[in-house]
């Protein structure tokens, strides 16, 4: 029992340290540098340690956090102190908890112990992720309410409506993938994408559920409340929306949860649609290339390759979201709602129906 | 350390239900009354789930599924009514909505 618990804790810690925080930090850095490139400027480059600015990494990952943490934590007068303090925590924690069921690798063989590289194996894994995602709305709502500020309140209301609306499309999009994989466990889903179609094409989810991918990606961006869906915080209208009245570490937590959600969406997209930790043609015993070529690879190396693949995919989709953010303009509120309810929702429903029909017909045929 | 007896769950459920019922009866704010109703429903859900476990039948959980659906529908309609009420009466207090007509 002790060993098992240690392993679980280890897996969670590894996931957090190796992927979530790294990618998140990378995301912060990306955010600054990529936006600078897009806007034809230099970006963060001031802070340096012994003259090493490391392309702004020092600035974004060392100087900025320190500054955030050391700033005065201002709490406005006449606010609900308890809720005001709770809101950022409620925003960050569910997003982090959602990672508990994300598989970041297949298995790790240590001696005769086979470790499943997924912190928690739940038979309702995907629903668990949705549950956590739906909880993160509380941070927004409570922050908006507790700040005793009109901009905050408006942001909170917008946030709650937006997140509830897009959750539906998101969940419905996932139903299509569940029907295809016939499981709710994310690790099982990742493994199901391991075979090859016609002997050469990796059977990744994007091939089966392209529509679901588009819907999920869109809804995911909306869930993380980033441009073009950043109406809850839209700085040109509501100052900073629901976290207008936050400063210091609490503000940092909101910023972090923002990026954690980006990483979460990337992780889910990776697992659901892009093979998760799968490396094309790499199986437990080595590469089975098209044309019956075979290259044997040691088990440990396979695991490392898979971890690397997962990380790269994660980074790619994080980068993709940042590019989206810095490319598109913000929606109007009515456009946002119309897209969610009249665009994505019917599309997702149609996707479910078509998927179910096809699966049914194929089962009949088989 | 054995498993918790089913009756403990039932007792917890009864207490929660009573709290919810009291809330429905004494609070003035319609939204809080609604929340208390949800509390009652959840107390009953606990009973269903506990008995489903002790009887070894999933049917109890299926009922919970239905209860949730009904609760969601009820919340949607109920909150819409409250919004309409505030528009016309500018109150959310149960004792100020006693004319039994619109």
């Amino acid at each position, binding site marked *: 029992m002790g060993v098992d618990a240690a392993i679980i804790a280890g897996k969670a810690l590894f996931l957090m340290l190796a992927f979530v925080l790294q990618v998140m930090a990378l995301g912060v850095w990306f955010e600054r540098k990529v936006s600078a490139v897009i806007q034809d400027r230099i970006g963060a480059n001031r802070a340096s340690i012994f003259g090493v600015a490391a392309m702004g990494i020092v600035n974004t990952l060392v100087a900025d956090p320190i500054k955030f943490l050391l700033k005065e934590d201002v709490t406005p007068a006449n606010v609900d102190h308890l809720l005001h303090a709770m809101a950022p925590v409620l925003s960050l924690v569910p997003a982090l908890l959602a990672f508990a069921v994300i598989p970041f690798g297949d298995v790790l063989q240590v001696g005769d112990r086979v470790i499943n590289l997924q912190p928690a194996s739940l038979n309702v894994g995907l629903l668990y992720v949705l549950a956590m995602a739906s909880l993160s709305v509380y941070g927004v709502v409570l922050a908006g309410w507790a700040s005793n500020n009109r901009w905050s309140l408006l942001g909170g209301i917008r946030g709650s409506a937006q997140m509830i609306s897009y959750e539906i499309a998101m969940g419905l999009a996932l139903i299509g993938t569940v029907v295809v994989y016939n499981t709710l466990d994310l690790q099982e889903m990742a493994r199901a994408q391991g075979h090859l179609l016609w002997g050469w094409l990796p059977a990744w989810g994007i091939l089966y559920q392209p529509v679901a991918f588009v819907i999920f990606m869109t809804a995911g961006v909306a869930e993380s409340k980033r441009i073009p869906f950043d109406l809850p915080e839209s700085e040109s209208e509501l100052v900073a929306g629901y976290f207008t009245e936050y400063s210091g570490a609490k503000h940092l937590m909101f910023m972090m949860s923002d990026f954690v959600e980006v990483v979460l969406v990337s992780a889910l997209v990776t697992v659901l649609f892009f093979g998760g930790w799968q490396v094309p043609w790499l199986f437990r015993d080595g590469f089975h290339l098209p044309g019956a070529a075979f290259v044997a690879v040691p088990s440990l190396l396979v695991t490392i390759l898979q971890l690397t693949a997962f990380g790269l995919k994660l980074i790619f989709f994080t980068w993709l979201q940042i590019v989206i953010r810095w490319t598109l303009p913000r929606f109007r509120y009515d456009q946002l709602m119309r897209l969610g309810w009249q665009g994505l929702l019917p599309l997702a429903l149609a996707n479910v129906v078509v998927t179910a029909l096809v699966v049914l017909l194929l089962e009949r045929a088989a | 350390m054995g498993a918790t007896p089913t009756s403990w769950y039932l007792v917890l459920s009864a207490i929660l239900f009573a709290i919810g*019922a009291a809330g429905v*009866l004494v609070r003035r704010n319609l939204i809080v*009354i609604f929340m208390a109703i949800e509390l009652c429903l959840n107390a009953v859900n606990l009973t269903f789930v506990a008995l489903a476990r002790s009887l070894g039948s999933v049917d109890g959980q299926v009922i919970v599924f239905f209860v949730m659906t009904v609760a969601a529908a009820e919340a949607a309609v109920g909150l819409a009514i409250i919004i309409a009420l505030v528009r016309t009466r500018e109150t959310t207090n149960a004792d100020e909505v006693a004319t039994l007509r619109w």
Partner: protein
Amino acid sequence: MVTDVSWLRWIVIFPALGTLFHVFVGGRAKGAVKLVGPGVLLAAFAVAVAAAMRVHGMEEGGALRDALYTWIVAGPLRVEAAFRVDALSMVMTLIVTGIGFLIHVYSVGYMHDDPGFARFFAYLNLFITAMLILVLADNLLLLFVGWEGVGLCSYLLIGFWYQDEKNAIAGKKAFLVNRVGDAGFLLGLFCLVAYTGTLEIQAIEHQHLDTLRTAMLGGWPVAVVIGLLLFVGATGKSAQIPLYVWLPDAMAGPTPVSALIHAATMVTAGVYMMTRLHFVYEVAPAALAVVAWVGAATALGAAIIGVAQTDIKKVLAYSTVSQLGYMVLGIGVGVAPAAIFHVVTHAFFKGLLFLGAGSVIHAMGGEQDMRKMGGLHAHLPTTFATMLIGTLAIAGVPPLAGFFSKDEIVWGAFAGPHAQPILGIVAYAAAFLTAFYMGRMLFMTFFGTCRASHEVQHHLHESPSSMTTPLIVLAILSVFGGFLPIPHLVETVVGHHAEEGAPYSMLLLATGIAVGGLVLAWVLYVRQPELPGLFAEDFGQFYQLVFDKFRVDELYDAVIVGPLFALADFIAFRFDPGVVDGAVNGTGFVVAETSSIWRRAQTGNVQHYALSFLLGALALVWYLARS
């Protein structure tokens, strides 16, 4: 002994289908109605004949039974919807379908130009359906269904030309008077259920007869009470004193209806029912005596009234009442087979006479008053010939049908199991009067000079063949019907009674009475037509009384109808506005006055309602958790 079959139902289903056809299709397809109306009767007749062959082929007392389904199960009471054909119901079924077919054919011609042609046949088929249910029923409840069904059809057909209020009133009268009888019938059924727990005729006969004999109800043996109550039903349906008053008025309906329902079939239902339940009466001699006296009184009284009637159909109507009295008398003196025999022969010759009268009325352009007829034999030869046969048959001239059946009843009065010779003398008197008024009718209609207007005379014509053919068939039956072995057949059901045939002296006496009556009529209405007027003057008051039918209707109006109307007026204009409306208004008043108190309970606050809800739930939980 009893064979179960599943095709008897078709006897009933065919006319029922006919009804549906007439109702839903008939209005747009008169040509089809002409075929379907009689056609379904022919089909039913064919099935009935098949049933008769089967029963005939069986040993004595055999029967066919067709159980459709279990109709009612209420505690120990269990009623099946089942049909049964034994010798008795076989005779009745053949009469109903056979005579019914002839009259349907006749109606095709008679009602040809009537706008309600399809409706008429719908009613007629429905009547046949109900009548067949009545005679085929294996239990008294199903019999009662048919009993009520024929009553309904009778009402509908009497008031067929309802645009004339007189007809509608006649129909209403028939229905209401029958209700009185039906009430008695129902009470009889209740008593039967109460004491025997069943309504199955066979079960009562074979298992519960001792109960009926020994049990007492209000100081009387139950059998007597039940017998009298059922007889009340029979007096209504079979037009006996005191409930006969509806039948003469029922002549308001189309003449084929009078022939079919109010002469040949429906009115014999009471006789049939009492024959069916002969075993009840056998253990209730007291009831039987009442039956005999009522029958004899009806036979004589109606005959006397018949003498003074001028409407040709009224004469026949009172004649029918009188003949029904004969049948009931036959039951009363214990010769039920003879009564059924008379039912059959009466169906022949009275059906014939009514149809003939219809032919006359048809020819006269709707005129029914005999004082405006006369000398018609030249214009209506076939009608005259057949009606002559009918008259001779009803008068009891041998060897025609009426002679045999009537003679058996009269002889039963003298020598039957429950003989009452004085009633035999009454019967002879009635027979004489019968011969007299029938002769009177015949002579006034067909002899002498025509008293009708020139226009009517100009249009006189013989009826079409669809009307005369049934007349001829019925005339043949009236001639030879007396040789049918009906009494023997019925005896296989009701049991034998050792009795000798009537002595020749009595046969001679009967013949003499019949001929005497006819001769007297001939003298009074052909040879010396001025005499009746003189008689009428000499017996002024008595003649007027007879002419006014003993003023029984007036008596009923004064004693029963008047008080009832007064009571209804009281209820409608005093009791209802005062007490009923008063109670309603009073309730409203009390509510209105006290509601200022009660309405405090209705705070409108949803939580107060929820609180009472919770308290109720609390009480419920407490109640359930007591143990």
